[in-house]
């Protein structure tokens, strides 16, 4: 069982470019999440999905969009990247929508120049 996989592992991107970070889980979890981690700020929730077909905004959603076409995949898209989106991005999943243990992917390190 792989758990959660993320791709790419790292990426350097020019400002203004579009970028999609991929996330796939094989645990059949209903809920999935995208976080960004910045030094000194911990993890901040960008978007989440309680179940396939639904998404919601987290703490810092501006500049990002997500989709949840099926249970396994939860891609995060930066439509026009800006330097402030330089961060480490983590995808996570949990069995249910409330209060469950979250399982994290290995992260994607994104640098926007």
């Amino acid at each position: 069982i792989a758990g959660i996989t993320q791709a790419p592992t790292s990426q350097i991107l020019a400002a203004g470019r579009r970028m999609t970070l991929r996330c796939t889980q094989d645990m059949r979890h209903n809920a999935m999440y995208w976080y960004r981690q910045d030094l000194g700020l911990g993890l901040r929730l960008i978007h989440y999905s309680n179940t396939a077909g639904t998404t919601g905004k987290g703490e810092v959603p501006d500049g990002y969009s997500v989709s949840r076409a099926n249970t396994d995949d939860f891609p995060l898209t930066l439509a026009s990247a800006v330097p402030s989106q330089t961060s480490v991005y983590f995808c996570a999943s949990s069995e249910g929508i409330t209060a469950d243990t979250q399982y994290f992917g290995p992260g994607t390190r994104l640098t926007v120049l």
Partner: protein
Amino acid sequence: SQQGEEDPQALSIQEGENATMNCSYKTSINNLQWYRQNSGRGLVHLILIRSNEREKHSGRLRVTLDTSKKSSSLLITASRAADTASYFCATYYTGGFKTIFGAGTRLFVKA
């Protein structure tokens, strides 16, 4: 604003000593979780304590929760160099639909 805040921000101890990290939060919670993150890796769940529980143990880990003070502590006993990592508390608060993470405590255990 973040729901949970860890204290201290960084902690350096000798192998064999106990490490205590604290977490304070702002509103009523359903549960509080502790996670560990090794450098460059994703977070790994350690332990969950529910709002009606006061203490939980898992191996060398002991977590306490004081809902009257809105605080929790994570104790790692007989620390090892391999315990070197960042530790985060995460709170799922009453009426919310998301788990909020604190900024973490960086623990360094010297061999």
